[in-house]
């Protein structure tokens, strides 16, 4: 079942492939292509096939900002062409035109953030992404040498490539074996940023903000991934559509929080000094222990 995700079940890794590396540059990423000889390509092909096998063995789960992926059993799936279209990472690992060639001379000094294998399939390009630096830097006071008949010093940069990948990016969406890597690579995507005003307005429509709180919250969320993730979660659950100020008041009492810190009459109070508190509250992240009166805050929730 899982193999059917984004059409990956019928995917055959072809002979031709590109090895792409990416690194941080100013606010975003830059990338280049590393030419590989047949032996390395064969190894990368096997790593792609191993990753496809892992995918076919796992249960797909549609991504929500709230989710906590069971990484040994589950697979994160997000079918969202807009997200891919807006992502700088996707633009690098699924380039529409050849990237600059990276060789020993042009390898950037900045650490590489990832490497990816891009292949062409009947259904478009597919990239297998490994979120690690393949370039093994030589620390001061150490050297790398290769043992043949004699031990010879390795003159150029050394690359280490793993036998598996963390994510698969297609033009239709993303499949990830590691949730944290997915969130790390796609969190700044404009497709997500554009939704912030919608998410805040949806809250405001149900329980209005006092003053310009909605605008200030949206502004803050644009630069804060954690805030954004919770706003998205609130919007996707849609639970506030039936929530009243009185219910919020009661919930505050239940979890032992001060009403004056969160409500101004029947309006939500956004505190710039502690922007998370209100969002935690609306996302039902505050709760009391079931057996004790201890107060907790949840970072992740799974529906029962």
């Amino acid at each position, binding site marked *: 079942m899982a193999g059917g995700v984004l059409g990956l079940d019928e995917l055959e890794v*072809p*002979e*031709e*492939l*590109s090895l792409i590396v990416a690194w941080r*540059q*100013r606010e*975003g*990423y*830059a*990338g*280049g*292509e590393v*030419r*590989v*000889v*047949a032996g*390395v*390509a064969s190894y990368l092909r096997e790593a792609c096939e191993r990753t496809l096998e892992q995918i076919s063995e796992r249960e797909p789960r549609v991504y929500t900002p709230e989710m906590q992926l069971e990484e040994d059993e589950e697979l994160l799936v997000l079918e969202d*062409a*807009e997200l*891919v*279209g*807006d*992502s*700088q990472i*996707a*633009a*690098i690992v*699924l*380039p*529409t*035109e*050849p*990237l*600059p*060639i*990276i*060789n020993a*001379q*042009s390898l*950037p*000094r*900045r650490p590489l953030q990832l490497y990816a294998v*891009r*292949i*062409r399939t009947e259904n*478009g390009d597919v990239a297998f992404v490994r979120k690690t630096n393949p370039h093994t830097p030589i620390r001061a006071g150490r050297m790398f040498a290769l043992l043949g008949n004699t031990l010879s010093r390795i003159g150029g940069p050394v690359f280490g490539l793993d036998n598996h990948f963390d994510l698969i990016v297609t*033009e*239709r969406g993303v499949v990830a074996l590691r949730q944290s890597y997915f969130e790390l690579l796609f969190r700044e995507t*404009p497709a997500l940023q554009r939704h912030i005003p919608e998410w805040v307005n949806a809250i405001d429509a149900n329980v209005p903000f006092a003053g310009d709180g909605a605008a200030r919250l949206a502004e803050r969320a644009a630069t804060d991934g954690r805030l954004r993730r919770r706003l998205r979660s609130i919007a996707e659950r849609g639970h506030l559509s039936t929530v009243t100020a009185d219910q919020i008041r009661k919930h505050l009492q239940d979890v032992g929080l001060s009403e004056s810190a969160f409500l101004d009459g029947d309006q939500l109070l956004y505190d710039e000094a502690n922007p998370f508190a209100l969002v935690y509250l609306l996302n039902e992240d505050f709760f009391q222990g079931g057996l004790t009166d201890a107060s907790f805050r949840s970072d992740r929730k799974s529906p029962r």
Partner: protein
Amino acid sequence: MAQERVPPSAGPGANGPRGKDAASDGYASRRERASDLIVELALFMSSYAPLFAILAIRFRSTTLIVACAALSAAGFAAGAAVLLRFRQVTGSTWTVRTVEDRGGEVAGYLATYLLPFVTVTEPGVRDIVGYALFLLVIAVIYVRSSLVQINPTLYLFGWRLYAIEIGDGWSGYLLARRPLRKGTDVAAVRMTERLFVSYSSRRS
């Protein structure tokens, strides 16, 4: 369906940052073309391999005959070495948006092949220095311009040169032994920043 993607930031290659940005990112802007330069010089040598063969036939001095024959052999060997070396490299597949056969430019390049016919058969030292200087100038122009793709020797062995465009803005060249049509997928190996070679014998 795929959305129109944001353009990736430029890397350190031909489209990459230069000057201050390049320095801050640690790109060796002068050295980064070193490996391309070796390929380009090898292609240059191979492009004049037939010319040196003609010169070897024209000259009467044994020393010059041997020197030109050696340069001709080295040129053929350099071309073959480049092609064999990149045959070991794994190619990638691209859709070529436009294709233009650049065979006509090879004919223009052949003008330099008139050199053997205007040289004297028993040149003095000054003549030889003059010819060498002429070839040096051609070599510099060859490497620094798009002439690097134009190679009569490769044409002799059935290779054809195409000017191609991929994606929205990438333009370069492709060496192939088969006809190419626009809008088709081509599996090819990157020889240099702007030159692909396709070893596939399948028709596109």
